[in-house]
């Protein structure tokens, strides 16, 4: 057992995702070696992020204002919503520069093992955004479901499809399939099967 302040730091660090007891100990002793200034900057950054960063009122992306940068931006296409699981997914999509619509962050996926059901996600808020009557200028014309291509992401997409389809809004799913630069011969059959069912016409 270490002195109380060190043990407390180790315990706190060990609660972070992806950090086990051993890494927590390593990080704690690294922090111990920091200069007063460096330690202060790190502590400030943590306090600051909690004080100043919040979730966007509309799409639940991280933001330092009531509305995030995408919801504020008038130049973006307001008839499309791309649904993602977490804020970093937006960053990944933005890097492609292929999409200029709006976003909606579910804050997770459906996973009974982790006790996460649809009511724990921002799904009700998404449906609220789709309420504008078709034909009106605020009406959403397409929802692109960009959840992860794993079991939980697929189940979440299927669930959204069932809810949104009947509202008369077009629902699409990101194509999932073969990795670029990969070899067809060695592709996993599940991946290959999905790629086949999501095939598209050339031209």
């Amino acid at each position, binding site marked *: 057992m270490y002195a109380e302040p060190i043990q407390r730091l180790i315990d706190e660090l060990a609660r972070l995702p992806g950090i086990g007891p051993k890494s927590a100990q390593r990080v704690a002793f690294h922090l111990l070696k920091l200069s007063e200034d460096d330690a202060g900057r790190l502590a400030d950054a943590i306090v600051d992020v909690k004080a100043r960063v919040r979730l966007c009122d509309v799409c639940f992306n991280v933001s330092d204002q009531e509305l995030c940068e995408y919801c504020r931006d008038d130049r973006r296409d307001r008839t499309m919503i791309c649904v993602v699981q977490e804020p970093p997914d937006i960053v990944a999509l933005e890097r492609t520069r292929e999409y200029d619509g709006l976003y909606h962050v579910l804050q997770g996926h459906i996973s009974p*093992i982790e006790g996460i059901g649809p009511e724990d996600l921002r799904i009700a808020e998404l449906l609220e955004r789709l309420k504008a009557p078709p034909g009106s200028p605020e009406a959403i014309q397409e929802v692109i479901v960009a959840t992860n291509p794993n079991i939980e992401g697929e189940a979440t997409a299927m669930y959204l499809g069932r809810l949104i389809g009947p509202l008369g809004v077009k629902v699409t799913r990101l194509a999932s399939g073969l990795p670029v630069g990969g070899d067809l011969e060695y592709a996993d059959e*599940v991946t290959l099967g999905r790629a086949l069912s999501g095939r598209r016409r050339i031209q």
Partner: protein
Amino acid sequence: MFVRKLALEDFRNYERAALELDPGLNLLIGRNAQGKTNLLEALYLLSGLGSPRSSDSALIREGADRALVHGCVVRGSRTLEIDMEFRSGRGPRALVNKTAVPGTRELSEITTCVFFGPDELSLIKGSPEGRRRFLDDVIVKLRPARFGIRREWDRVLKQRNALLRSWPRSGDPRTAVETLEVWDEAFARAGAALAAARLEGLGALLPFCRKRYEAVAGGGRIEIGYVSSWLSEALVLESLDGAELDPGELQDALASRLRELRSREIERGQSLIGPQRDDLAVRLASPGETVRDARSFGSQGEQRTGALALKLAEFDLLSDALDETPILLLDDVFSELDPARRASLSDAVRDMGQAVLTSAEPGAKGSATANTVYEVVSGEVRRRD
């Protein structure tokens, strides 16, 4: 294909061990509990399908924090260096030629092993789980790209069972039912894909199995059926006879049974039908008689012959399909067999590629013909000249 070199570190009872293996017959001699089987297990692990006998955490030598297995595998004109690392509480890591691969399943593209141990009688007498695992492993060995089907199925089953266990769910009951419907659809799709792969694998295995059984038993017959509470018997029989399967038909069959059983599954809090409950029915017949259930009616000798025929059929099927001879790992099997079966097995071994045998008898059968003989004494391996 063959393993040219095997090296271990902190693996089970070995602190360090290294063996050079012959492309033909290799013999490991030692008294019981000295670590012979551990060497076969390490060879099997190189094929990326997990241990044939236990969880990965047991692989780590007591007091060590990780176990290492290194193998040098020759396949066709290629020589591949495989390194595996096992740590408790996380999945195994694998390197091929010093480059990390995304998952150990990549290894099943390189090495294929058939393991035959003294417990194989459980293929006939044991629980359905062992028979499902046998068939599921054959499917992946036959086509490594099928691994994803199994992984996806395992995950969907766990998720759906977790959902059923958590019933009744708080909140809107309609949301709960809609969530279940989503998992039903995933369950039916993944389950149908696995069942289709199993039927195809079993259909391919059967002709080899019949031939081997007849040869080993000197007549008689073996039949293996796929027992399922959600597939029609007619469909199973047709597909085992080689008819093309329509995965959509299987998916519909499973989906409609799920709808019928919904309230019972909710009440019981788990999935009551699906591939996780299916089984293989092994039936045997003496010459001129009709087939009967091997588990209830077969003699001990017939059951052993059945298990041996299944394993040899696995070997034959893989040899035929892969254009490569799998590596045969025989763990102390000769002592369990009577002279006739012993003879037919050693005939078979002679025709095969690389084989690694263990035996407790110093003058064991094959020691005269083996190309390489190692003695195993309490975690030490010594080559006998």
